């Protein structure tokens, strides 16, 4: 906080959850203290409960039909809009990331820039991934046969614990680019950039409920999500080995698609398509063709 204007007290921001397009406090009414890397108080973040997780799933499910049914072009426009909005609030995020991760301003700026660029990258993917991973199959018979990717549904995302913003965007953007909706658990220690991202999403034409951001104890919130019968998949990026195993076991109850945590040294590296395909189903549709030919009436 600046001390050059002692006569004016700065206005703190109350950090809230982002659920169903709205900014509720935690249903528990509880918060926890968020500090910077040196232990200085930054803010109180909502301490989400099981019920917050449940509400977030309801919101994500409600949003799934519209978002997955939107045209890929439209989703691309919306994701690009997120990049635009983020660019406009660049300074805020540079500050939040610097404080959260103990980075110099330059390094934090590099993270935020990379995050903006990542939205742009995935904005461009929305209407291409189907062409890359889908296609016609030359079956040995008079049938038209087409495989296309479809979003898996509601995806619980445990955001990376260390990379509070670029890591978050890198796991969230691919989930929603393909038409899934997400319930994101922010980095436990550094949740503020994620909660602020909710504010950006709310003003970026992302329909309410497509992304829901929760903060709190990762293990506490993740357990009900992993066991939730209306969650279709879970990304364990932010789980340690023991938690990942526990959640993967819980996820087996309704055969969630599980993306296990993978070591990531450098979130700025260009991602491949893996994070998109992890939450895509392949649907294959058959239809008879006739044959036009000398055999006569066959259509």
């Amino acid at each position, binding site marked *: 906080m600046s001390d050059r204007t002692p006569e004016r007290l700065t206005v703190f921001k109350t950090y809230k959850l982002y659920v169903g397009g709205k900014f509720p406090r935690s249903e528990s009414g509880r918060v926890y203290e968020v500090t910077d890397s040196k232990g200085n108080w930054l803010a109180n973040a909502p301490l989400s409960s099981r019920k917050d997780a449940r509400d977030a799933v309801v919101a994500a499910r409600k949003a799934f039909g519209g978002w997955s049914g939107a045209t890929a072009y439209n989703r691309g426009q919306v994701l690009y809009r997120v990049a635009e909005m983020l660019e406009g609030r660049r300074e805020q995020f540079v500050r939040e990331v610097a404080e959260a991760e103990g980075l110099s301003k330059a390094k934090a700026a590099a993270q935020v820039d990379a995050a903006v660029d990542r939205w742009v990258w995935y904005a461009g993917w929305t209407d291409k991934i189907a062409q890359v991973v889908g296609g016609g*199959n030359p079956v040995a018979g008079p049938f038209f046969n087409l495989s296309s990717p479809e979003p898996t549904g509601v995806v619980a995302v445990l955001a990376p614990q260390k990379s509070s913003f670029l890591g978050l965007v890198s796991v969230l953007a691919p989930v929603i680019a393909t038409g899934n909706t997400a319930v994101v658990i922010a980095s436990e220690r550094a949740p503020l950039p994620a909660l602020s991202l909710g504010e950006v999403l709310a003003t970026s034409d992302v329909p309410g409920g497509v992304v829901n951001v929760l903060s709190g104890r990762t293990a506490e919130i993740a357990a009900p999500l992993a066991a939730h019968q209306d969650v279709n998949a879970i990304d364990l990026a932010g789980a340690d080995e023991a938690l990942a195993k526990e959640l993967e076991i819980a996820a*087996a109850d309704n055969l969630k698609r599980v993306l296990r945590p993978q070591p990531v040294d450098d979130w700025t590296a260009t991602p491949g398509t893996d994070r998109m395909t992890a939450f895509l*189903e*392949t649907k294959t549709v058959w239809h008879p063709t006739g044959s036009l030919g000398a055999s006569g009436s066959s259509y």
Partner: protein
Amino acid sequence: MASAFEYAPAPESRAIADIAPSYGLFIDGEFTDAADGKVFKTLSPSTEEVLSEVARAGAEDVDRAVKAARRAFAKWSALPGSERAKYLFRIARIIQERSRELAVLETLDNGKPIKETRDADLPLVAAHFFYYAGWADKLDHAGFGANPRPLGVAGQVIPWNFPLLMLAWKIAPALATGNTVVLKPAETTPLSALFFADICRQAGLPNGVVNILPGYGDAGAALVAHPDVNKVAFTGSTAVGKEIARTVAGTRKKLTLELGGKGANIVFDDAPIDQAVEGIVTGIFFNQGQVCCAGSRLLVQESVQEELLESLKSRLSTLRLGDPLDKNTDIGAINSAEQLARITALAERGEAEGAERWSPACELPSSGYWFAPTLFTGVTQAHTIARDEIFGPVLSVLTFRTPDEAVAKANNTQYGLSAGIWTEKGSRILAVANKLRAGVIWSNTFNKFDPTSPFGGYKESGFGREGGRHGLEAYLDV
């Protein structure tokens, strides 16, 4: 059935399949006894006759087989893809040469009609090996990056409904990508996998690349849990699939599951009725309904229900049930006493819950495991027979009024493997196909399979795809 034109019996000669009195486990290129000396009998479900006595694998045998597969992996994965391809082409060709023998064998061990093993199972088995053979030296172009690497040892557990075809779905892509395999066939249908071991021998496949472990669930569990297995592939029930998912949790094992289903076959009022009737019959009575992607729920538009059911019933009256080796048999035996008991219990539950049961006049043989083609009308979403997978020749008939209602009912299940759509209106097909949450949608057809066409489910029907370019991913480190 016309009384004037009865078809005389036309049995395929069973002598063509020379079944030995006993078989061992196939480990490291050799047939061996189980470490604990245990054996089990495999029966012909149509007669209950014992076909052979087969070694029963235990945990120690699993370990032996995995070690053999691990030893073989280094050389096999280092072979140029073009060489691996040639082994698979050889296997495909030998299967074609021996297809009549294998069809008879499969019919004997499984109980399904020879018409199906001859015209569906075996051609698809050969085609599957042929298809993946061609991929072995083209993996760089499969869309998984340059030089994608195999995973290592694949542990594969397959069901009894399409024993050799499921083996092909598992082994062909695994070998093409450079993995070695340990495969456990189902306890009621071990024979075709053991004949396949002999085909591997004829093809000159290096020892240890394919290991076959006949056995029960305990052997499957040991295989899945073995620490030196890198890949687990399972086809079977959803309950076991969940157990496997728990077992591999927290490991680096890659997992694909192809599980149960409760497929909706949706018939709109403008459907090509005669073909829809055929599609319904194929959908639920192919392989006695013991098909994970069976169209076991018929959703018919209320306005054509009467007409459709009348046609369907008269068509069912022409189905010929009996000796699976008879070339004119349409409906064979249920695979096991256990499965028959499950089907019987669920059908009784359907009656008890108030659905109306109907079967054509149909004489069942006195020995063996048989169940008459059965349909239930007046079924609602709340009935057990509309929700639980029966895995038998039992069709539940439900009605709907609008396309939205059809989609809602079709999707109202924990499964998501297959669905059918029957309508002459193209835009309706595409709209409905788009909204159905299922991995395979057959429009104006049903139960069609092809090695190039990815197969697999949404939701609790499992994950991963088998077949096509997509099927390679399950066996590559990508």
